[in-house]
């Protein structure tokens, strides 16, 4: 039906379009017709649309209502976005670059590429929340992403001496003094970025050791102390003044009497939420707030726990609490979840690691009360929940179908954290909202009081280390600009550089072949061994062979396919060779409709189409669906005119050191 409809429209359209040529029957033989005659008029568009291969999907012909404009690849975000991992990484780590360096055995170089962006590669290579992995292209092409995080650890574990490669610290300071409150990853990043610029940085930390939650809460069986010491040491070694055991008790005093040019608040979100249910007070000695309890364990104030432990909550803190309990003598650990598994906050790998250690996770149990007998905790009573879900999996209704008792000697509450600032007076011009959360600008990280900045968990509530690092980088830019008397909002924009990777006819300076290897599994210490001591690191890291195989899985998404429309002769070679059917030459059209007309329909709307300028011979456009490109370079290799090229993108994500200008030391103090 559609075929016929199109036939008719096409024929009449063609007649009109061709009338001019038919009438001028006397054209001399072989006279050149202007190429513009082949621009896709409505009729020509139809001719292409109509002979779609079987079965013709009967696309309703559309005229040129809203054609996609040529993609603006000069916008730095365009190619950056193609590197899915780098785009997903809050700190924009150049993942494919460090993976290639690992492949070449250049571990220290790989470490430094990481360090530049994420500051703590050894720490993050073990415990990063790794938002890059769910984003990784490889997980779309097959189902498992590249083990990006584990490879970061490979770089950290195998690197050589790197102290000599750290930024040089000027002997003559710039006269500006910055205070950082809290020695967590956010503050440490601020120090890391400002010390090389000649700043004096003083870090105030209430605890006896630096590192923030990385030290006090992330258990040492996941993150060994030695790694923390090394990477924090590198920053302190740059000359940060660390004042341990030194809580800041009054912001007013610090501002009034501290003599600082800027203050960065990186005090985290230190308040664990409590669960006020009947029995809470009587059973208090055996009810613990998760993050406080983990801190007590980390600093060896707590060394044991009862036999039967209930963990309330199912986020990452809960996972650390349950696994730590097992190492302190618990025999039975149940993690109690209010909702079904798909609603858990914990990362999949944390859940897997806990379950491997025989932790039971019990779903659909809502805490009701603590059961106390003879003044001692006996367990907890839960409501048994049932939920109705809609087609998209959202909960539409919930009901209680009964109740159930679970015996427990101890209960650990792991139901969330909040930031709290009892030490910040409310009359300093630092505004808070009605939940006592400070008002912080999401770009500059400046509070409502100029010169006072927030970052990490302190700024917008609990996140993770890598976000704290990026907050630190951005806040450092603001601190720098502020101290130099420049507007904090007037920041250097991100940039991108491209560099061809062509070496010869069939040679690229990257390994372009697709390796079908499956994701490697990281070896773990045996279940028997790992409980012997609290600080035995469970993950062993990749072996050399595993790392060598895993690096080959990376698709080099930063080696971009770059198209030059004026060179294309429309020979189709690139289209025919593309293994994943990313490329189509077709009439331009409105995006939603164009997506259906590609060689493989572009259904992943999160991935952009790369649309060229009109091609010389027919006026059609080259369309690339970025979704499935495996960066094999075959399109560029097959192209007779080098209209396609493979070019490495270098994303320039500015840090404090990149901001102009240099210091102007005679500015007034903020206080």
């Amino acid at each position, binding site marked *: *039906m559609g075929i016929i409809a199109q036939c008719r429209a096409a*024929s009449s359209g063609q007649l009109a379009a061709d009338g001019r040529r038919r009438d001028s029957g006397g054209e001399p*033989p072989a006279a050149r017709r202007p*190429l513009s005659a082949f621009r896709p008029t409505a009729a020509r568009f139809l001719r292409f649309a109509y002979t779609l291969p*079987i079965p013709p999907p009967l696309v309703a012909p559309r005229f040129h209502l809203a054609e996609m404009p040529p993609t603006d690849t000069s916008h730095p975000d365009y190619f950056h976005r193609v590197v899915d991992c780098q785009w997903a990484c809050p700190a924009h780590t150049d993942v494919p670059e460090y993976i290639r360096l690992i492949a070449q055995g250049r571990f220290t170089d790989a470490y430094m590429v990481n360090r530049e962006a994420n500051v703590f590669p050894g720490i993050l290579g073990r415990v990063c929340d790794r938002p890059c992995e769910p984003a990784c292209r490889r997980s779309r092409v097959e189902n498992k992403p590249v083990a990006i995080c584990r490879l970061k650890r490979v770089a950290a574990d195998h690197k050589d001496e790197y102290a000599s490669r750290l930024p040089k610290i000027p002997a003559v300071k710039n006269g500006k003094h910055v205070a950082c409150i809290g020695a967590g990853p956010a503050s440490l990043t601020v120090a890391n970025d400002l010390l090389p610029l000649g700043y004096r940085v003083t870090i105030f930390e209430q605890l006896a050791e630096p590192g923030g939650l990385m030290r006090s809460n992330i258990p040492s069986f996941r993150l060994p102390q030695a790694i923390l010491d090394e990477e924090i040491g590198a920053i302190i070694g740059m000359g940060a003044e660390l004042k341990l055991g030194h809580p800041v008790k009054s912001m007013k005093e610090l501002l009034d009497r501290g003599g600082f040019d800027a203050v960065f608040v990186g005090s985290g979100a230190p308040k664990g939420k409590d669960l006020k249910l009947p029995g809470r007070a009587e059973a208090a000695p055996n009810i613990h707030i998760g993050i406080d309890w983990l801190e007590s364990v980390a600093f060896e104030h707590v060394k044991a726990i009862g036999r039967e432990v209930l963990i309330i909550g199912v986020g990452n803190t809960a996972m650390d609490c349950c696994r730590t309990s097992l190492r302190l003598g618990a025999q039975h650990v149940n993690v109690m979840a209010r909702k079904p598994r798909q609603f858990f906050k914990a990362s999949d790998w944390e859940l897997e690691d806990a379950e491997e250690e025989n932790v039971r996770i019990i779903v659909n149990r809502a805490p009701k009360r603590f059961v106390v007998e003879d003044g001692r905790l006996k367990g907890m009573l839960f409501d048994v929940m049932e939920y109705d879900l809609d087609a998209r999996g959202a909960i539409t209704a919930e009901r209680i179908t009964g109740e159930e008792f679970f015996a427990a000697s101890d209960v650990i509450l792991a139901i969330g954290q909040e930031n709290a600032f009892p030490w910040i007076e409310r009359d300093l011009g630092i505004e808070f909202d009605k939940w006592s959360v400070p008002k912080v600008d999401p770009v500059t990280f400046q509070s409502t009081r100029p010169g006072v900045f927030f970052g990490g968990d302190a700024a917008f509530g609990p996140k993770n280390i890598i976000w704290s690092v990026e907050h630190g980088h951005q806040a450092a830019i603001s601190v720098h600009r502020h101290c130099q008397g420049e507007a904090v909002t007037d920041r250097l924009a991100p940039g991108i550089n491209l560099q061809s990777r062509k070496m010869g006819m069939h040679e690229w300076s990257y390994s372009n072949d697709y390796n079908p290897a499956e994701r490697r599994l990281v070896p773990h210490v045996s279940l028997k061994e790992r409980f012997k001591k609290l600080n035995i690191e469970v993950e062993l890291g990749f072996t050399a062979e595993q790392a060598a195989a895993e690096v080959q899985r990376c698709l080099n998404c930063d080696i971009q396919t770059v198209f030059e429309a004026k060179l294309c002769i429309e020979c189709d070679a690139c289209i025919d060779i593309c293994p994943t059917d990313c490329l189509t030459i077709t009439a331009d059209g409105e995006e939603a409709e164009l997506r259906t007309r590609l060689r493989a329909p572009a259904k992943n709307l999160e991935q952009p189409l790369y649309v060229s300028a009109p091609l010389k011979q027919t006026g059609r456009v080259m369309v690339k669906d970025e979704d499935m490109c495996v960066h094999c370079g075959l399109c560029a290799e097959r192209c007779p005119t080098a209209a396609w090229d493979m070019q490495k993108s270098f994303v320039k994500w500015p840090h404090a050191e990149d901001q102009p200008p240099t210091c102007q030391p005679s500015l007034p103090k903020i206080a």
Partner: protein
Amino acid sequence: MTYIPKPKVRHPSLPRNALGLTRRDYEGALSTLCAGCGHDSITAALTEAIWGLSLEPQNIAKLSGIGCSSKTTAYFVSGGHGFNSVHGRMPSIAMGANAANRNLHYIGVSGDGDTLSIGLGQFAHAIRRNLNMLYVIENNGVYGLTKGQFSASADIGSKAKKGDVNQQPPIDPVLLALSLGASFVARSFSGDKAQLVPLLQAGLRHRGFALIDVISPCVTFNDHEGSTKSYAYTREHYEPAVNAGFVPFEREIVVDYAEGECLPVVMHDGSRIVLHKLAKDYDPTDRVAASAYIQARAKQGEFLTGLLYVDETQKEFHELNGTPDVPLNSLSPELLSPGAKGLDRILARFR
């Protein structure tokens, strides 16, 4: 040519045909032709066409002679049968194979040199016998494999890469086939898969000899300024006259056709080709008129493309010769061999 093979990884939303196969399942070995060669595009179009018809790879026989074009049978449907014959002799191999097993889909791929120079005699007689096969000429106007000498399809005045100008008149395979009584004659362009793929499908479904002359630029020896078979020249001078939309039998057509624009042709197996006439005064069922029209347009410097002539009623080789309905390999030895007595009887007929 490429050093790494096309990776096996594929797009998850790649469509599947009735056999549950994707286009990738119909690919062949890695091409060794020059990057940008029109022949590779025709290979891709063949892959697409065969996939679209859901033909079973093992029921396909690919035949060719010598030339860059003739190499391409290795580059699609690696699961099919294949025979790479000597130069210009592909039709006789096709003839023999087809006589023995009429159930396969025969796809001959040849060049303008292979067909119109050394193989012209074989080509002509395959047409006369109306051998049931798809015959694709990958026409680049040169002998690509032997470094670009003019072939018999080169136009007068066409310039070679080094500057020589061709003086001899070309043989137009389309006009030749029409004059020899061909039952399916088409012309297309490697750079227009939208036109080519349905033509190939119609050709594969046609019962009898289906000729498709496909202009296929040789990027290395014949894609320069002054060539009449370059991408740019072809795009400027080709003139779609009758496009074909292939409609499988299962898909019913319920709409009436606008007179003079769309013309359905019912194939022997009940499927149809819908001829889509872009040139209104063209009649693809009138051999004489078609021939005249093609020549008239050629004089204007345009070459007509599309399904230029079709006649589904013409008898093909097996019908003309009263051969058995089934492949010879499915007949019992008794039926295949006349035996001593039978042989005597046959011989007696000639005494």
